[in-house]
């Protein structure tokens, strides 16, 4: 009954989304506040309906109602409760429902937001409704998550064991909240294009939405990367796989948007470019959903793929983005910048940042789609990691060199010499760090040493910028403390994010250049050497989990002085349903490093007894790879808490407007 109610709610949500779009656009055209108000009510109701549908699906999963197709295919009575709930978004249908949930939630938030000019708001809510119509329509007509089975099975087929993991249970909600958060920015851009007006008030609206989406996306990608790191047992954290690239591309565009919207808000410049980025960012989100869900590209993380319905997602993408870009081509010439800036200025630095980020996104896109381009010429194949490492590495290196200077440059016209003088200490530290790493680390690696120097440069630059803001060491400590609390949080958020990026770069450099790997077939009592560590297999015993049986090894890790680092307990699990085996990696943290241990398969030994294949990695500084992005996301959240980001306040001096073209 609850399932039928949920199905009905989803159909109702489709109707409400159509009403939301229709009422908004008609209301705006007739300048009728009652109609646009009704549209806002429809946005609210559509969210409530999709939420009801989601609750119905989760209910079906929790109660293991196998008469629902989705539950029968992705759940099992013996599965732990958290993975029953997470199973609700583990399938194609469920993930589309999650997408629609996020879409209507953002639509509802936009409808409830205060302070936006009513015409702009009406068109934003309307565009959000149009997007809702497309996606909810797809869900109801082609991908119903609540479809019933005529003859329900006694037991379900269970969720892929690889997905039964806490990090991955949380990964899709964060990722989708990020992806779909960009839909609001998209809608704001479309609304601004229809109105023909992009001013600093508009940009002030775009910034918090972009920040929220960007922070959530950062967390989502990091969770996914961390999952791949410890769940797949391959020792790596990023593989330049199409599914990974699909999440990176909108992130890059959102990062560019974050920076260009600042220029549009503060200086009334780059209006058309900011609008373009807003459309492009959500377009890449939709492209990501299509690439991941259609299976059109061969991926190592292909879960819940359905090629036939994928083409429908492509059609939705074409309809939404096609019309938005057409609108942009038609209206963008109306958007004129009113302020100019000198070649050495903060605007210029941000323009450079934007060009590089957009170029990186484009090259990643080219590499990701390359198999399709080859196919058009009758060949089959793909592009490997060396391509991405080269192209992304070199382009980002350019960005990293200029990044610390950006926040120190003044708007409009800056004194390059003064900035260089301020950064000389940071540059010296970075250079020294690079040289030390180059001469001490073995094996000797020049490129990795340069990467480390780049990371240190970013961190030192961020610290220098913060110290300058606090006037540290130049005014009494109490005065600095007061400034720490008094200065706007937005600036601290930026510092934190840039710091996080620096830490990430350092972690990436160390981890990829100086990782040590070892593998051996060993029986209890014997061991293997891994860099500075000695691993000894103490015992292997059997253990029963809730829905799997496991062999659990106890492996003692000692360092070269013979002192104990940890007793690691990697597992090899065989799941009852489907008989799939997975490795539960044991992570043994030591400072910023991980000793990473995988228990492989059992081998018979000549003369009786057993031995196990043990594979281990020493991953130096790998923790920074996850700490860095989390700091970036926290920086975003901190900026978001800045009072200036809450538009309702509106207590700000009016910045110059970018363009005041006629509305119709």
């Amino acid at each position, binding site marked *: 009954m609850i399932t039928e109610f949920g199905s009905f709610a989803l159909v109702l949500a489709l109707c409400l989304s159509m009403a939301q779009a229709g009422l908004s656009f008609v209301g705006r055209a007739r300048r009728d506040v009652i109609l646009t108000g009704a549209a806002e009510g429809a946005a609210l109701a559509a969210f409530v309906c999709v939420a009801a549908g989601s609750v119905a699906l989760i209910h079906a999963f929790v109660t293991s109602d196998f008469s629902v197709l989705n539950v029968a295919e992705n759940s099992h009575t013996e599965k732990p409760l958290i993975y029953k709930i997470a199973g609700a978004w583990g399938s194609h249908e469920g993930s589309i429902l999650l997408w629609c949930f996020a879409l209507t939630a953002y639509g509802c938030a936009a409808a409830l937001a205060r302070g936006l000019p009513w015409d702009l708001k009406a068109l934003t809510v309307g565009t959000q409704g149009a997007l809702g119509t497309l996606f909810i329509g797809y869900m109801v007509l082609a991908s119903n998550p609540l479809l019933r089975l005529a003859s329900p099975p006694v037991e379900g087929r269970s969720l892929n064991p690889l997905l039964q993991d806490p990090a991955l249970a949380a990964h899709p909600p964060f990722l989708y909240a990020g992806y779909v958060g960009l839909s609001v920015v998209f809608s704001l851009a479309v609304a601004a294009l229809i109105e023909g007006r992009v001013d600093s008030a508009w940009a002030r609206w775009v910034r918090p939405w972009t920040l929220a989406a960007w922070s959530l996306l950062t967390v989502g990608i990091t969770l996914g990367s961390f999952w791949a790191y410890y769940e797949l047992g391959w020792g790596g954290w990023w593989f330049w796989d199409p599914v990974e690239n699909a999440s990176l591309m909108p992130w890059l565009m959102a990062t560019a948007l974050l920076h260009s919207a600042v220029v549009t808000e503060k200086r009334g410049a780059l209006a058309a470019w900011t609008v373009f980025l807003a459309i492009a960012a959500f377009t890449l989100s939709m492209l990501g959903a299509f690439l991941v869900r259609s299976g059109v590209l061969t991926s190592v993380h292909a*879960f819940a793929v359905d090629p036939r319905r994928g083409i429908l997602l492509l059609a939705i993408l074409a309809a939404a983005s096609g019309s938005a870009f057409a609108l942009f081509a038609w209206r963008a010439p109306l958007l004129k910048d009113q302020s100019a800036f000198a070649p050495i200025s903060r605007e210029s630095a941000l323009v450079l940042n934007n060009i590089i980020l957009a170029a990186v996104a484009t090259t990643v896109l080219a590499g990701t789609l390359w198999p399709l381009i080859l196919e058009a010429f009758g060949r089959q194949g793909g592009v490997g990691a060396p391509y991405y490492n080269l192209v992304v590495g070199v382009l980002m290196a350019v960005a990293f060199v200029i990044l610390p200077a950006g926040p120190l440059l003044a708007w409009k016209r800056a004194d390059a010499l003064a900035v260089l003088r301020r950064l000389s200490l940071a540059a010296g530290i970075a250079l020294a760090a690079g040289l030390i790493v180059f001469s001490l680390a073995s094996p000797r690696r020049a490129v990795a040493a340069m990467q480390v120097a780049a990371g240190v440069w970013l961190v030192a630059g961020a610290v220098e910028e913060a110290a300058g803001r606090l006037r540290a060491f130049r005014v009494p400590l109490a005065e600095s403390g007061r400034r720490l609390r008094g200065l706007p949080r937005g600036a601290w958020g930026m510092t934190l994010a840039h710091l996080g990026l620096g830490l990430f770069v350092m972690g990436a450099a160390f981890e990829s250049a100086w990782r040590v790997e070892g593998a051996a077939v060993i029986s209890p009592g014997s061991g293997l050497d891994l860099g500075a560590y000695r691993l000894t297999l103490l015992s292997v015993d059997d253990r029963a989990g809730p829905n799997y049986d496991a062999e659990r090894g106890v492996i003692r890790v000692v360092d070269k002085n013979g002192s104990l680092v940890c007793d690691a307990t990697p597992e090899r699990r065989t799941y009852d349903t489907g008989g799939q085996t997975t490795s539960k990696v044991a992570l043994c943290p030591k400072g910023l490093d991980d000793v990473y241990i995988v228990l492989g398969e059992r081998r018979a030994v000549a003369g009786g007894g057993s031995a196990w294949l043990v594979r281990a990695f020493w991953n130096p500084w790998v923790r920074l790879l996850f700490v860095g992005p989390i700091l970036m996301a926290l920086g975003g959240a901190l900026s978001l808490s800045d009072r200036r980001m809450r538009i309702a306040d509106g207590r700000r001096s009016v910045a110059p407007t970018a363009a005041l073209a006629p509305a119709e």
Partner: protein
Amino acid sequence: MVVATAAPILALATGLTLFGLRGSISYFYTPAQARSAHVSAGQAIQLGGLVSPGSVVKGDDGAVRFVVADRLASDPVVFRGDLPDLFREGQGVVAMGAFDRAGVFVATTILAKHDERYMPRELTRALKAQGEWRGGGAAASYGAARAAP
């Protein structure tokens, strides 16, 4: 002004892309196709075919050796990593890597069939062309494994 900044960056991006693509496109071949295309040692490719029954040997150093074959030719493959769960003798596999000088294919990533109906698209197509494919359409997903980089 913006154009003056953008031009060198875009030129750099384009140059890098073309250079990078030239070096790292890996084409898909079955063993017979690889032979007729004279794939040289060290060139990154994707090798697809069926795992020859009885050919899988698991070494004590963590390496797995097996033979990938199509109807006309076969190649020895070595992979240092945990095989995907549904790697089976007699079934389809796509290995990414390169041949060494001795003609052994050193795989860095292995994609194998994950359920009864699915194979990576490239393999399905190549085997169909050779008349060796006897399966249905596509389905859910497949297993993958990767050697330590």
